[in-house]
């Protein structure tokens, strides 16, 4: 069972994502509400996959992604953001994000993407 760390400033998004993942055989081993906390949690629980919201107050998802990739260049980070933020997605992919998911969450898409990432 792949382990997942969810980094998102929205409690609603964390809750919906966690429900979807746990229903589909992923283990959510940590949650963080900003980039700084996300980086610390990553070092603490070493998840197989990180789902990372891009737009967060304070340290955003792209900065946190860079820190995680410095810590572990093989880290699998899936970026999450509202639709329409293509430039930020491109920037995240350049910094090593493996995939991205757009909000609002679609269970079918999330499970497909995370299964693909877990198997890669």
């Amino acid at each position: 069972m792949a382990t997942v760390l969810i980094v998102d400033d929205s409690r609603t998004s964390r809750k919906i994502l966690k429900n979807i993942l746990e229903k589909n055989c992923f283990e959510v081993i940590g949650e963080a509400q900003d980039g700084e906390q996300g980086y610390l949690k990553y070092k603490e629980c070493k998840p197989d996959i990180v789902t990372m919201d891009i737009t967060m107050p304070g340290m955003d998802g792209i900065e946190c992604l860079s820190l995680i990739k410095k810590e572990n260049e093989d880290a699998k980070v899936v970026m999450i953001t509202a639709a329409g933020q293509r430039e930020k997605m491109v920037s995240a992919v350049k910094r090593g994000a493996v995939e991205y998911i757009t909000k609002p969450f679609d269970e079918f898409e999330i499970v497909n993407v995370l299964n693909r990432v877990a198997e890669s």
Partner: protein
Amino acid sequence: MVEYILGNYLVQRGKISKEQLQTVLQKQDSVRVKLGLIAVSEGFMTHEQAEEVNSIQATEDKRFGDIAIENGYLTEEQVARLLKKQGNTYLMFIQTLVDEQLLKMVEIDDLIDEFKRENSFGNADIEDIKSDDADRIIPLFLPEQAKKYQELIGVAVRTLIRLVDRHIYIGSAVMEGSVECAAMVSQQLVGEEGVTDYFVEGNGALLKASCCFGQEDFAALDEDALDAAGELLNCVNGLYASAKSRQGQVLDLLPPQYTPSGSTLQKRSLCRVPVFIDDKELYFIVTAAV
């Protein structure tokens, strides 16, 4: 949307009661089926294709039928056939009023004429309302100065219909310089044509939208409920930014902001659109970013 606009007019005029309108709407609901479901049951699409179209709908502000055509799953003729099967909302509404013996056809025709006169609508406007197409209905409720926000308002209404409740309709929008607001969420879209938009509580619709989108029974519009409302606004703006980026414009979304205790919004020009979910009201407000 048409059944609510005309239904509430009939209630206002005392032609039917609120309870009778609810009965009519429930009867109508029980026979209305989603387009994807009909397409699958007719054998035009597979479940997987319908799911895929639903996924695309999550990121693109487009109708099911349009996406299915673009992806080669349905032809225009098939979509037309499916829409026919799904039924015309206006005709179903009128038929149910008559079947329930609440009004006679001739009375309905007269009332629609009065509705047209009272709102200074022309024949084409009435046809737009009867079409039940949000894109055709929304402009009728916007003053001239608000037309520049029409695209964003359209995305907001369609997103609320898709993610919160199918039973949504809007009232006449107004331009104001100052608005007293109850609990609200806002988000800034930064770019050449940047705007700030808000979901503001009226008398319970924002709480209802938060519960529905957040998949939780919030007792009040507290921090958690507003977080859900903020995520909903984020989805609206993401879809709008996505549409704008296809037109070559870049809009950057800042994190949503929450104001649980409410405040007074004062800007040079605010466009306030009343949005109704069943009997409850919220406001979608848009203003140009400074």
